[in-house]
Each structure stands twice: as C-alpha cells, then as structure tokens.
C-alpha cells in the first residue's frame, strides 16, 4: 500500500486503510468460499438404532459399522472386503504358532492418549471378559505378549489360519481411559449401574462422537488429528434411526436425509424414479437357505408317524427339485437376489463357480417322493421368521405353494424373529421340522459354515460344532474334511478340501440353499458412496456435493 501521498489532504493514508480493509474483507470472503475445511454434513438414517457406544456389547452389523467410524482395529477390510493394515502396520509369523504385530506409531486416541501395545493387551482381555458379546472374535487360547511399546506377539497352542479373520470387528480401546472411567470390563446386561463406555467413546477413528442420545440421534464430527488420509469430504455425520419403512423412504425423498438403509424392495422403483435419489444394490454375503430336521426319529410337526421322511435322501432331493428358484427371484424378490448352489456367497469362496443348482423339476420330484413311499405326499409345519430377512415370510409362502405341487401340504408358521429364534435355535431345543434361515460366516470363510451350520452336532466332544445346524444334517466325512480345513494353511490346498466338503453336502441334499439377498441402500444423488457386501454402511468413504 505504498502510494505517493498528498501530505496536504492526508488522503493517501485514508485510502490505503480503506483499501486494505476492503482487501482483507475480500480475502476472508474468498477464503470462506473456497476453504476446504468447511466440509459437508451427511445425514443418515438406518432401520436400527445405535444402542451402545461400547464396542464389545452388541454384535450386530449396524452397530459394528457405526463403531467403525470412531474406533479402529488392528486390521480392517477394504472396499472389496480384503484384510488390510489399520492400527497394526504389518505382521509376520516367525513360527506357525507365533504371530508378530508391528503397531502404527504416532496414533492418538480422541482424548490425546497415545496408542501403544498396552492398549492392545488390555483390549484383548476386555473383549474376552465376562459381559462381552464378541468372545469368538479373538481366540480364547491366544496369548498376547508385549515385546515393546509398538510390538505385540500372539502365541497360539496350534496353528490357526483364520486367527485374524474376525479382528476387523475387534476395536482397540484406551486402557488408561477405561480404567479411569470404571469401564475395564464391558457392562454386563445384569449390571445395576450405567456404563460410562456405553455412553462415551474414546477411539482412534476418523470420527468422534459429538452428541449421542441412544435410540434418538447421534452426531459424529470429523477427527482433525486422525492419522490416515480422509477419503470423505464431510465435517459431520448426523445419524437418526427411522424404524418405519415408509417414513424412512419419505425422509430420503423429501431430502431430509442423504442415505438410508435399507430400502424396502417394493419401494426401490419409486426411489429410482424420484429424480432425487437412487438405490444402490448388490448381492449381500448372507445366504438364505432351507433346512430339514434330519435327526429325530419322528418329526415334531408332521403327519408321518413313527419315522422321519427327511432321513431319506430322496425326500430331500425331491424338496430341492420342487423349488423354482427363478420364480422366487422374479416374483418374490423382484429380481434382487442371486440364486445359489452353495451355503456360502460366491464372494467368499473362489471355487463357487464349479457348483450349479440341480434343475427345477417338479415331475422328477414327485417321482422321487413316490419312490420314497409318499405317493400322496405328507403334511408338515414350516417355521419361518417374518421380520428378519428380506421378504422372508413371502419366500416361505412361495415355497409352500411349490411343495403343494408335489403333494406336500405345509402349514406355515411365520413369526417375528424374537419368537422364531427362541423356538428353533439351540436354547429352544431346535424345535422345528422344516425351516428358513440366513447365514453370513462371521469369519468370511467356509470353515465357519462347514463347522457351525453343516457339522454334526456333538455336545460331548465339541459342543460348538453344529450349533447352528438346526436340523442336524450330519456326514462324518464332511466333518473329517472340516477338521483338516481348520488347520490347513496352504490356501490352494485348503480351497480343494473345502470343495470336497461342499460336494458331499450337495450330494446329500443336506440343505437347500436358496439365494443371496440383495443389499438396498437409498442414496441421494448428491452423495457418492461405496457399498460393501457385508452391508456395513461406512460413511468414511462418502463424498457429498454442494
């Protein structure tokens, strides 16, 4: 502002002051407009609530996904579900039974505490403590040893190829913070005092909780000190649960929220036609299937007395072939399903292309039933949830119609999940003869399916085997293969063993896999998002225009 001055009038001084003021104002306006620091607010509504901020108390996809914004694990899964480093920078296995993890330096919890090996050891204890619902995420027999502040060894009694497969859901907590706030163990449901950790958080993640009203509204704001490089352009996320389907869709269409999950199937076309939002859909990892009681000598709910028709493989094959999966896809699922020949999603098993569903063949099915001694079919009760999976009760109704064509008369018992699961799962005594169930292997690996869903129930030797095998489909050869798969560390060899196991199950018609249901997220046209097949809505990959 050095201008020649007219000393007489003093004009130059005034001018320069005014000028510089103007310039400063302009500069600040420009800064305000272009400043990248402002960021966007993303409003997100889900059917379910964020019930607790304590990452070890509720094992449920929606909750785990919420926690992923504020807490981080040693490892995480990328957009294609591949395991990638997070709080652990790298790891190696010097011996088959010893894993060494090198922790990331310079990471700070939201309150400023540094992240070190002590926090990993503490979290390993806490997730396996009484009151945790994540006991299976970290192997009970794994011993955690601190080598130095940034190195942790995990010592195992036997090799474990899937040691880390569920570690992406094991979020690391701050030892000091937990101890100071009386939250060393997850709050058991029977506690009489409220838990600090369920209302407050202190993670290392890209977002922090600004306010949290359980079941009403949660505001996440961006963590400016996060170690990573953000892929989003957000400054905050406002989360509201909206349980009612119609209201949730209305909120998206009226522009009050930017992202909703899920969109009910019947509303997908309307959302796509609205011009303000689109439905992102893709196959989910969950496999929906039918199962039969193959263990009781007489079915609990059937007109056949004195014997169990499902013990005859011909009856199971007849049931399988009587189901017109394409009709279920086009009529019931409105095209939003991927018929499946396997009990695991193709994304999780590379050789799944080698399996094809047996053809729909009602006449052949009828013939098989006749051969098995049921020319006039029989009567049977089917158990089905009506609020758990996409169009679950409608699928069951379709199945009832299809089986009627081969003479099997089914009484459908479709109930809310609370009653359904209480009846059919192990604590309820597996009280079912014919059922519909969905399964996503928590480990993202076939071993889980083969062991939990298809393994022979054996309460004496291995009580966890076949725990979710509601009809106790059992083949000892398959079990022997599963045992090998559990310890086989060579991936190619392991995949071949898995293939043999699935071939046995297919030949036995042990289960009737139906399909992978589709994910349906409603996303405003202003928002770009990455959809992951495990249905975790991860907004740290979201960008919003405007």
């Amino acid at each position, binding site marked *: 502002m050095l201008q020649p001055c007219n000393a007489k009038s003093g004009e130059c001084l005034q001018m320069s002051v005014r000028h510089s003021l103007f310039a400063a104002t302009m500069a600040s306006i420009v800064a305000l407009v272009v400043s990248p620091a402002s960021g966007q607010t993303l409003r997100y509504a889900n059917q379910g*609530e964020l*019930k*607790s901020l*304590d990452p070890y108390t*509720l*094992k*449920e996809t929606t909750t785990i996904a919420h926690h992923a914004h504020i807490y981080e694990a040693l490892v995480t899964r990328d957009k294609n579900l591949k395991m990638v480093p997070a709080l652990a920078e790298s790891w190696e296995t010097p011996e088959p039974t010893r894993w060494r993890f090198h922790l990331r330096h310079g990471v700070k919890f939201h309150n400023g505490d540094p992240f070190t090996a002590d926090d990993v050891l503490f979290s390993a204890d806490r997730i396996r403590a*009484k*009151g945790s*619902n994540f*006991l*299976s995420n970290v192997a009970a027999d794994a011993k955690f040893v601190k080598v130095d502040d940034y190195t942790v060894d995990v010592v195992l009694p036997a090799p474990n190829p899937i040691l880390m497969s569920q570690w992406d859901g094991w979020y690391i907590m701050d030892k000091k913070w937990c101890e100071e706030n009386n939250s060393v163990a997850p*709050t*058991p*449901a*029977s*506690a*009489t*005092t*409220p*838990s600090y950790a*369920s*209302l407050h958080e202190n993670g290392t993640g890209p977002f922090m909780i600004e306010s949290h*009203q*359980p*079941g*009403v*509204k949660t505001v996440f704001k961006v963590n400016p000190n996060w170690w990573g490089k953000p892929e989003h352009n957000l400054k905050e996320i406002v989360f*509201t*649960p*909206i*349980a*009612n389907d*119609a*209201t*949730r869709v*209305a*909120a998206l*269409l*009226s*522009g*009050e929220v930017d992202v909703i999950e899920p969109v009910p199937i019947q509303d997908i076309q309307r959302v796509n036609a609205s011009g303000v939002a689109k439905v992102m859909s893709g196959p989910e990892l969950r496999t929906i299937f039918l199962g039969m009681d193959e263990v009781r000598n007489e079915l609990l709910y059937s007109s056949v007395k004195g014997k169990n028709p499902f013990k005859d493989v011909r009856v199971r094959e007849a049931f399988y072939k009587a189901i017109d999966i394409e009709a279920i896809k086009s009529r019931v699922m409105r095209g939003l399903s991927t018929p499946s020949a396997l009990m695991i999603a193709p994304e999780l098993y590379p050789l799944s292309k080698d399996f094809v569903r047996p053809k729909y063949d009602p006449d052949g099915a009828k013939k098989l039933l006749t051969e098995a001694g049921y020319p006039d079919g029989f009567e049977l009760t089917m158990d089905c949830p009506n609020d758990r999976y996409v169009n679950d009760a409608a699928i069951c109704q379709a199945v009832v119609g299809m089986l009627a064509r081969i003479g099997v008369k089914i009484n459908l018992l479709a109930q*809310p*999940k*609370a*009653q359904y*699961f*209480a009846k059919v*799962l*192990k*604590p*309820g005594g597996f009280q079912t003869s014919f059922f519909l*169930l969905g*399964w996503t292997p*928590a480990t993202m690996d076939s071993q*889980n399916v083969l062991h939990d869903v298809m393994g022979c129930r054996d309460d004496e030797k291995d*009580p*966890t085997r076949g*725990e*979710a095998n509601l009809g106790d489909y059992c083949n000892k050869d398959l079990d022997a293969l599963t045992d090998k798969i559990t310890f086989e560390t060579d991936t190619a060899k392991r995949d071949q063993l898995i293939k043999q196991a699935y071939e046995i199950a297919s030949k036995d018609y042990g289960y009737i896999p139906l399909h992978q249901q589709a994910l349906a997220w409603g996303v405003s046209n202003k928002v770009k998002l990455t959809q992951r097949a495990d249905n975790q809505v991860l907004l740290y990959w979201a960008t919003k225009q405007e």
Partner: protein
Amino acid sequence: MLAFTLRRAIQAIGVMLAVGIISFSMFRFAGDPVNQMVSIDTSYAERAAIRESLGLNDPIPVQFARYFVNAAQFKFGISYQFRQPVADLLKERMPATLELATCATILALVFGILMGVYSALRRDSVLAKMLQAVSLIGISLPTFLIGILLIYLFAVILNWLPSFGRGEVVKIGWWSTGLLTVSGLKALIMPSITLGLFQMTLIMRLVRAEMLEVLRTDYIRFARARGLTTRAIHFGHALRNTLVPVITVVGLQFGSVIAFAIITETVFQWPGMGLLFVQAVQNVDIPIMAAYLLMVSLIFVTINLVVDILYTVVDPRLRSTISRPA
C-alpha cells in the same frame, strides 16, 4: 370423603398389581431376549452365560418376586439393549411424549369444540355436512394411515414439514422441549394432527349432540324470551352446559392419548416413550416393557382417581350417595 378416596386408592393399587402380573406372564411369550443381544453364530455356552447373568435361569417365582420388589421401589433395572437404567431412558423420552399428547389434546379440544358448535348451530349448512362427513373419516381411518398420508403430502410432495423426528430441542433442566425452536414446532404439527384427529372428531360429535340437546331445553327458551342476544345464549349458556361431559371425556382420554401415541410415534419416529416401547417389544427388552406398562397403568389409574374425586367435588348429589354405605 377420606374413606372414599382411600378405598379408591386401594383399588388403584389392586389394578396396578393385576397389570404387573399380566405383563410379567406375557414376557414369557415375548421370546428369548438373548437372541436379540447376540448374533446368530454366538455359541450356546456364550448364550447360556448371558442368560445366567440376566437371571433368566432362576425359578419363575424368584423372578416374579424380584420383579415386584424392584418395581415397587420404581427400580426397573438396566435395559438389555442400551445398557442404561430404564428409569433414565423413560425420563429422557417422557418430555417428547407429553408434549405431543398435550399438543394433540389442545388441538383436538379447540378444533373439536369450534367445529362441534358450528355444526350444531348451522345444522343444515353445506360446511356442517362436510364436517360431519370428514369426522367420519377421522373416526374410521387408522392412525398410521393418516400419518403416512400426511407425510407424503406435506413432507415429500410439498416439502413444507419434516417427515420424522422432533427437530431441534432445547434443554430446560432435564426436560427437553421442542416448543421453543422453529424446527421443533414444525416437527410437532403432523404428529399432533395424527394423534389428535380421533379425539377431535369425537369431541366434535359430542359437542354437536350435546349442544343440540341443550338448545332444546326450557332454560334456553326462557333466555330467548328474556331477549338475551343469540351470542350470549349460545356461548354463555348452551356451550357452557355442553362442556361438562366434554371435559370428562377429554380427561379420561388423555391417558389413552399417551398410550396410543405408540403408533403415531412409530410412524413419525417421534423419540418418545411409545417408540421406546415398540422397539423394546421387538427386541424383547423386558425391563423397558415392564416399566412402560406399569407407568401407563399408573397414569390411567391416577387420572381415573382424580376424575372420581373431582366428580364428588363438582356434583354434591354424588357426595351424598357416597357417604351412605352402598
């Protein structure tokens, strides 16, 4: 009078006890709460440990006794889902429900009386006939349908009002209010109409019928003969005499407005006690269900008690029959 109040209070306790027993026995059919707390692949041993920690394995009489002893001290335990004391959760949600119920009732009273008076005085006008027809819709359409229709019209198509939630709230002590912000007031409009519509049409029909009755009585004719203005007759005499039954009905209905707020709250995602209850039922969150049912029955019992007592205060004829043993 004291004996009467005491007797009524004892009856009220009996009612509460009955509600407690019924709700406790219902919980046994609600399903297994553990299923809602863990994922499906959780092991049996883990599930059993949770059951044990919740005290679900104790003998039924023990569970029942524990439930009652705690409920009598207003201790409802910790919510299975939120891991928070149920009393805190209810306290947090109560302002939302009470504000909604009060607004809906005021709305119903004001418009119900206005429309009722109008359709009684101008019985043959087109508007009165239309009001009658519309009131039939209000009485017969289910609440959730009205709510969804309103949402589509005013939120999606016209974009005037928010489709869900309470808007911005202001905290005054522990009470959160939506009445002090613009977004809070806007958010209140549609749920209030939805919740109040039934009461509104009820009051309208009641006022109309009572008013027609009163207008035929002798003292109205005398008032006319004395040359009072029509306005004084209609509003000073006829309406005032009509209001006694209206106030009784509104008083008694306030309890059901709170209880029926469940549906309205679900449709509008209104963060009140009703929504909390519905979600508790879906998730078999027994502590919340128990506390809510007892609280609603307490509200009903209290309102009835107050109304009974007020009757005797207002109407001396009742008092004389009460003091005489039945």
